[in-house]
């Protein structure tokens, strides 16, 4: 199904902003908030995983039902998971479309990768304390 992805701050994301390699940050920024009716439409339940795909890539997130989310729209806290599928075009303004991304969403059995694995897949090497 097609959805429009919105991204933004949540207080839990903000709480982990200076501890981004901790699991709490990964758990929050890999959340896909969806309206309960959309969960039924897609045929999934809270806690299930979904694969979001755009023209630049795909990422697996876990789903949380959110009654205040508009049907047809999903919300992902700003961070590396959302940015994994956001194109870098800015329409000549310097600002990518962080809040207006058309995504295709399908249920998946694939696991949600850790933040470390996500950044490693982009060419990163994590620091091990």
């Amino acid at each position, binding site marked *: 199904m097609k959805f*429009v992805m*919105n991204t*933004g*701050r*949540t*207080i839990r994301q*903000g*709480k*982990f*902003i*200076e*501890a*981004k*390699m*901790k699991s709490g940050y990964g758990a929050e*920024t890999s959340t896909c908030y969806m309206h309960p009716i959309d969960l039924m439409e897609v045929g999934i339940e809270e806690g299930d995983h979904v694969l979001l795909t755009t023209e*630049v*890539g795909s990422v697996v997130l876990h789903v949380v039902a959110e009654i*205040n*989310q*508009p049907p047809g*729209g999903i*919300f992902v806290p*700003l*961070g*590396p998971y959302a*940015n*994994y*599928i*956001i*194109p*870098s*075009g*800015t*329409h*000549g*303004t*310097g*600002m*990518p*479309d*962080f*809040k*207006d991304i058309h995504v295709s969403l399908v249920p998946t059995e694939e696991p949600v990768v850790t*933040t*470390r694995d996500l*950044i*490693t897949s*982009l*060419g*990163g*090497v*994590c*620091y*091990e*304390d």
Partner: protein
Amino acid sequence: MKIEDVVCPFCGCLCDDIIVEVENNRVVSVDNGCTICNAKFMSKNQLKKPMRRTDDGWEAISYDEAIDMAVDILLDADRPLLYGWSGTHGEAQCVGVHMNEILGGIIDNTSSVCHGPSVLAIQEVGHPGCTLGQVKNRADLIIYWGSNPDEAHPRHMSRYTTYANGYFLDNAFRERKVIVVDVRETETAKIADLFLKIKKGGDYAVLSALRAIVRGKGDVVPDSVAGIEKTMLEQLVTMCKEAKFGALFFGLGLTMTKGKYKNVRNAIELVDELSRHTKFTLTPMRGHWNVYGTNEVFTWMTGYPFAVDFCRGIAFYNPGETSAVDILGRHECDACLIVASDPGAHFPRQCVEYMAEIPTIVIDPYENLTTSVADLQIPVAVTGIDAEGTGYRMDGVPIHLKKVIEPELPDDTEVLTRIYDKLREARGV
């Protein structure tokens, strides 16, 4: 030891009433702060030593080695990008601008991916702003448009708007009306007197309709605009006109959605229309605690607020061309210096992948996602905790951030000045 009137270095509210208790040079408790403020002051994740990426991981190095390596990377680059700056103090930002002039690189700050479009709109039609003190003491109508202070600026409502009694408002919660406009019903929307849930991308149309109604041209407005009944728009305009002092706060819901800076321009022009009937002001809800400071410092040093390119030997500014996401997306820079920000977490993946390919230096107190794609990280003291300096609140008021514990590491200004001095020596300036 309790230290009072401490400034929180997290968001653009720059709350200056925090009480911090320190024992053995560690923060042990925080009073008055929000959840995010507490987490920041109590954080134990600060890196202690500079580190360099090797073939099989990372190795700790000395500050002298790290400074030399940073200088070599920057001198080798033909078109370096110096990005970030919003999480450090103004004095360090000054050094960064000087450094960029010597290097002939591009210097950009995080406003290019937050309120950069607001700056573009303000450059077109001006900024009818005021200080937050004026809002607190006078405003009897608050509008939050495309912003969710409950999560992003958790004390904004208690310090300046909904719950803050002011000189002319003894009982702010009852006397101040709150309007929220958003695409989803946020926690902020739940406490609003009027909530307009608009369709995604409908901001420009709704702002235009409101302007028409304020001008007395409501007959051209259709029965519904972006999912909002015309009667609700008329109700909003009536509330605005009846207010003695209205304050519109807007967030990234306007700057990041379709229309971008044109949305903000329309909001400013709505405020202009309303000011013909009553007093109305507009303030962007700035994110990083000193992102406003980057705009101030860059502007008074180069003439431009962000995305400044010195490759011609003089300052050149063209957001969309000289802004960080575009420079990285086009693979135009050949080295990056990232200071006090985390584009590894907040930039689109194509930009992050490219940062991993080119030499990248990070100057930041914490390990973050940019660390993983960098070649060198130099940890520094945290401004407001173990370093001091100047920050600008979201309304443009400069505030001195003091340190509450003694530093064990150099601060941003010291590290950048050491790099800058070596660059000057190498370039003979």
